[in-house]
């Protein structure tokens, strides 16, 4: 077999990936509300990175003489129950939320993709085992699972990231497996395999690029939910350790002061809501851009 024939068989029948990506970007940009979403995401990233510069006070600085102060000149979002500036804590909390969102989804996407590819390729028993495992994780209420994992992994952000990673892995695993299965049966792949191409090579050349799209879509939609999930876990008392601030733990701590000092709850609450909405817009835009068929 000469190399030219091999190359042509292995040639990608779909248009070059880079072309598609450019189209995608253009479509995404046209999606309604995308600019708003992008602005929010950008703002969140900037705030997270520049927290030390933007934050008017040290988020840990307590002032027991000025607790539960109303929002006003000195403190735009008031102070909390130990006199800390709420605005500063909301600003610093952006870091926690963004890290929680992106890192946990990254973990889930990576783990899920590996598992999905394994299942799709190996087939048979391995496939069965992996998918049963994923079903098992899915059939548990996510919060309970995260709680139990968190209790074992110990308190702290790392525990939360791992717990959330586990909770979101099945979605990616299923996605990847589906991709592998559909690509596996395509003619050019069969041919490639007949010619002796290794599974690994096929995966890199055909599966991954095709799977990239739905994985990215899923990931972008998941980040917003991961941020919500971290907030929920912090709300229940797991997650970020004091005195560090996370929007969820601030809302939890502020719950008891709802009547006297609602700003402790609604300051971080508003930040959480706006960020999640913005991320959702971005996620929708990405989805619309990359896969117009999915558009609602």
């Amino acid at each position, binding site marked *: 077999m000469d190399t030219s024939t091999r190359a042509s068989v292995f040639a990608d029948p779909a248009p070059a990936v880079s072309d598609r990506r450019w189209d995608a970007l253009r479509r995404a940009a046209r999606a309604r509300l995308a600019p708003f979403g992008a602005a929010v995401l950008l703002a969140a990233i900037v705030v997270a990175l520049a927290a030390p510069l933007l934050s008017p006070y040290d988020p840990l600085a307590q002032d027991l003489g000025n607790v539960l102060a109303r929002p006003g000149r000195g403190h735009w979002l008031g102070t909390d129950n*130990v006199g800390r500036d709420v605005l500063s804590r909301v600003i610093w909390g952006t870091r926690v939320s963004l890290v929680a969102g992106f890192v946990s989804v990254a973990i889930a996407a990576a783990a899920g993709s590996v598992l999905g590819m394994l299942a799709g390729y190996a087939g048979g028993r391995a496939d069965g085992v992996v998918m049963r495992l994923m079903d098992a994780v899915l059939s548990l209420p996510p919060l309970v699972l995260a709680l139990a994992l968190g209790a074992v992994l110990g308190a702290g952000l790392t525990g939360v990231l791992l717990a959330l990673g586990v909770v979101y892995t099945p979605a990616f695993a299923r996605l990847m497996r589906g991709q592998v299965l559909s690509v596996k049966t395509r003619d050019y792949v069969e041919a490639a395999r007949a010619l002796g191409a290794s599974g690994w090579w096929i995966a890199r050349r055909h599966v991954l690029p095709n799977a990239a799209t739905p994985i990215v879509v899923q990931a972008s939609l998941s980040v917003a939910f991961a941020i919500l999930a971290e907030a929920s876990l912090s709300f229940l008392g797991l997650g970020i350790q*004091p*005195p560090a601030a996370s929007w969820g733990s601030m809302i939890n701590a502020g719950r*008891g002061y709802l009547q006297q000092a609602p700003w402790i709850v609604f300051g971080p609450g508003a930040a959480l809501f706006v960020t999640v909405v913005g991320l959702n817009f971005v996620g929708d835009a990405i989805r619309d851009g990359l896969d117009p068929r999915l558009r609602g």
Partner: protein
Amino acid sequence: MVTRRDFVKSCAVASGAAVVGLRPGAAAAADAPKKGGTLRVGFYIEAATMDPHLSGSKVDRQVYHNIYEPLVTLDTRLGIKPGLAESWSQPDPKTLVFKLRRGVKFHDGTDFNAEAAKFNFDRMKTEPKSIRKGEVANIDTVEVVDAATIKVNLKKADASLLATLTDRAGMMISPKVVQERGVELGRNAKGAGTGPFEFVEWVKDDHLLIKRNESYWNKQGGPYLERVRYRPIPDDTVKLQSLQGGEIDVIDYVQPRDVAAVKTDKNVMVVDVPSLADFAYQLNHGRPPFNVKALRQAVAYAIDLEQIVKGVWLNVGYPANGPIPPTSWAYDKAIPPIKRDLAKVKARLAEGGKPGGFEFTMTTNNIPLSVQEAEVIQAQLREAGITMKIRLVDASTLIFDGNAKNFEMISFQWSGRPDPDGNVYQFFKTTPGTSFNWSGISHPPLDALLDRSREVSAQAERKKIFSEVTKILQDELPMIFIVHPIEPKAFSQRVQGYEAIPDGMMRFKDVWLK
């Protein structure tokens, strides 16, 4: 620093004024007790069992003190007064003789007598699941002298036993009910007690109902209420708002953060009940850094108790000088709580070999108040050059780590006992194995004092011993004592006649609804 005036005032609220009705100054004659009505009570968790011998939870006791009665009971100054036992005497240090009240019947109609009392003590000691075993460990045998007299033989002299018998360990259950119902007693206590109220029903997670005992032996005063209905409301905010909204009449605890606001609410009355509790942090003497006494003292001097009680507890509590609360006769107000002194911190750090400061981890409960306190302490220590990390765990893990001595500094909240021994002995006596001596302190002079405090029966002398103990504790620091919390209880305006006893138990015998 708690001034004498403050303390006396609070006791006055707790004892004197309360009997008149809840507003100091309200004329007693204006309102004569009325019979009838259902008192709706909100507690923070569901009761666990209706069997006092098997009970380990504080909420259970609240119900018990209304349907069961102990041999002896507490007055508002923590003195011991007669309960089901009319009188008692101590012929020698190892013998207690109780003369029991005659004519008392259990709710099921059977008689309360010496046989029944003996039955109860035997059950506490021999029932496999009995949680009272430790409390009655010093009791050797109980003899029936006659139908209304029992003789309790002790293994060693124990001056704290009487106080222990004012709670679950002294409560009398009908032997007939125990024999007939066995394990079911945990869920159904019909006919089992002798108290002013009797058990009606318990619908778990919903409510527990008790009703007036029409044939209660004590004809003085109540019971006036027709029924009392307990509801578990785990959320403090919801509980308070239920009270303010008129859905319930009584709550057992108001969070410090809500106290000031609730006191201005005209629909609600707040009674500050100084408790027996002591809240502290245990320091692990068995591992670095707190195996070094100087470093323990450094932390103690770096903490500002006044600021914590003022800023975190909002003065709903007293800075602690040791494990014994101000409500106790054994409290020594001449010993001040440890005062913050940054100069002394420096000196101790140097002495302990860490002149530049050091780092450690504090393990504490993930409830809001504990978290807040930890954060404040962290900031205070930071100023003194000591770095403290906070590790939040849930209650089960906390207990586990404490018992396993897997901590450096750990939160410890003891609800307190009427006798000072209950706040002291088991925490500081040298004890191998698992015990509440989480710090692992082993200090022979302290051990000797603790043992003596049980042998001696004269209060004045015991008080001197406990003062010595407190001084040693402030030096050796198995625990850093923070606060003796006040447990504010809140009532709707209709509730009259509540008498606050520092053990925090809500007894409704003489309570009535306007």
